[in-house]
């Protein structure tokens, strides 16, 4: 048994729980759309926008993953 890196819930294996896995996949999948929309955008800029801009209708779990990934980035 291990814990989800984002929410600490018990999972059988892996890094993320189911909910946060879906959220992380969605974040990755949508990145290219954002790059196209703004012509250029880095992964870090993307995550920052997603986690900071209250106008963006992003789901809470996706936001939690974005915040986690940003923190990992800093280390």
């Amino acid at each position: 048994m291990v814990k989800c890196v984002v929410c600490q819930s018990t999972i059988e294996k892996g890094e993320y729980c189911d909910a946060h896995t879906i959220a992380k996949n969605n974040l990755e999948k949508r990145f290219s759309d954002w790059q196209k929309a703004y012509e250029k955008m880095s992964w870090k800029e993307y995550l920052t926008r997603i986690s900071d801009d209250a106008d963006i209708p992003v789901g809470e779990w996706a936001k939690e993953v974005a915040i986690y990934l940003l923190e990992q980035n800093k280390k």
Partner: protein
Amino acid sequence: MTDYLCISEKPTAAKRIATALDEKGKPKKLPVPRNFGKIPVWESMRKGDRIVTIPALGHLYSTVEDSAGGWHYPAFSYKWTPSYLANEKNKTRPFILAFKKFGKEISNVIIATDYDLEGEVIGATIAKFACGQDLANVKRMRFSTLTKSDIVNSFEHRDPTVNINLVNAGFARHEIDWLFGINLTRALTLSIKHATGRYKLITTGRVQGPTLRFVADRERDIQTFVPIPRWVIDAKIDLDGDEIFIEYNKKFLSSLKEAEKVVVETAGRDGIVKEIGSRKITQKPPSPFNLGTLQSEAYRHFGYTPSRTLRAAETLYLNALISYPRTSSQQFTSAINHRDILTQLTKSDPYRIRANKLLSKSKIQPTFGKKKDPAHPPIHPTGKKLAGNLRNEERNLYNLIVCRYLAIFGEPSIKNGLRLDLDINGHIFYFRGMKVLKKGWLEFYAPFGRVDEVELPDLAVGDVVKLAYINHKQSYTQPPARYNPNSLLKKMEEQELGTKATRASTIDILYNRGYMEDESINATDLGFAVIDTLEKNSPDIISIELTRKLQREIENIQTGKKTREAVLMESIVQLKDILEKFHKREKIIGITLQEQVQNLKQRQRILGKCPKCKQGELIITRSIRTKKRFVGCTGFYKKQCDWSAPIPQKGYAAPAKKNCKHCGFPMLTIRRKGKRPFTICPNWLNCPGTPDEVIDNYRNNKAGALDVFVEEET
């Protein structure tokens, strides 16, 4: 002279039946022993015969476990018992006493409950258990309205026996629901108990689980949603000083560059009217109401939830104003005389003109939809005049039902959809209009079928207009919408979950049990935890297919294709399989369920370790008394730490997941619509980072003192 005992479903219906059957329209209220309470027993005289009518109060009997007891599973043996014995709060004992007393005296028993699965079970249990009748000898009155003529007719042409298939299907549904409900609820609850020693009742049922799953799945889609940016073009033209919105021919642009290009290339330029087109749209009149479409329209026009609509419709039915509402039929049979009903409606002011107009037609032909229901016709008015004793929502609903009924005899409506195309430097913009050419059925459905007509501006091809304003606006793709009670009911219908009679109450139960909340339905943490855990460990419990299959089996009993015993045996085999699989994974289910219930709730609230006691955690919580939000230490519950502080009340507060650089307290983030999120220190009263002004304002009780603080933190 013959004596008859007539079993009715409710006191109001009993009075109507007794009055209709009594030749003078004045049935006698028979005296009953004191311990029967105020239960009305009616005696009607008809052609020398005596008819005693007694009401039930819905179900008087229910299924209970038939064993020495103990809270365990599997529990496969059950028996039918008076509901007042099964549940102390149930007050139906006098009703059973009345049926027993008169059941002894009178041997000709007639069931006159609502003609459907529930009604059949209510009647059959009373005839069998209270009156001691063999169901093969029990007669059945069938009616779709409580009008005098329908009741008399159904008495004179009563069925020689009850519909035994319907009875068996009704019994089987109760029994299967009981089996699934009790076993799954016990399994879930005991899994937590066995794994963690804690007791938390987790209830579920055959239809509840899969219904909650829709809500939880939607919640997951929303919470994991990542939008795509897009842009819209905002533009207005100037027409003699009036600014009028026009739409760009592409609703959304997928890149900022593309949006900028449109603005740059059109700003300050004139537009030329390039084309004016029109398109005829013919719309057929709607189908007659069944319960589902009535609930849906009542939600749309009045905002009534499906269960509220059903309750109001039931009152209208009991007042003999409309036909039986629990129907899925959208097709009238020739048995209903529309000319009669319309003639009755001409006696009511609001409907006179429209009803007369329909009566003047040579042929009165209603529309029909796809759904059939052999038991009852579509919901329609009886023609009886509205009495003064109705509540507002009942009146509204009645009006909707009558207008719909009038509309189904109308002609198709014809509308003209207009579009003016404007060319601005090669970019095409639209202006849309709408004109009704022929009202048709819309006239009869008024005020419900209103169309907003929009005139096109007085322009011709080649005219030049001035662009008054143009800019692009950032927007995003949107997460899927949450269910509301109405769309959830529709989803259940579409997926064949539950029946028309039970769907609305299943939704109510999920609210009452705390699995979902709000009008725009959220799965609660508890609801989400249950579905999430079951999806992983025991997917059959919330499987839509299984529920639907059981539903079909019940229908098979109703049509005589299968016996009640065979279907029950099959269900038990299936349930046994589910329970065995569940039991193998009981431990992990129990642990994750408990953890999820705890964790989901907490992780939205825990800021971090409490710096004061270094044991508890600081959480965002609410005062039970003042309902105000504040930050406190969990040590408070153990009487170890009393640290707490007020925080701003507006906006969504969540852990910031970082510590204050001035005092080291874990911080929180406040999000408000349309504003940047702010991070504040919960220790602001003692934190060196807090501006003096905020403290002064707070000490002077200045309203919004903390809001100022939030604003200034940026």
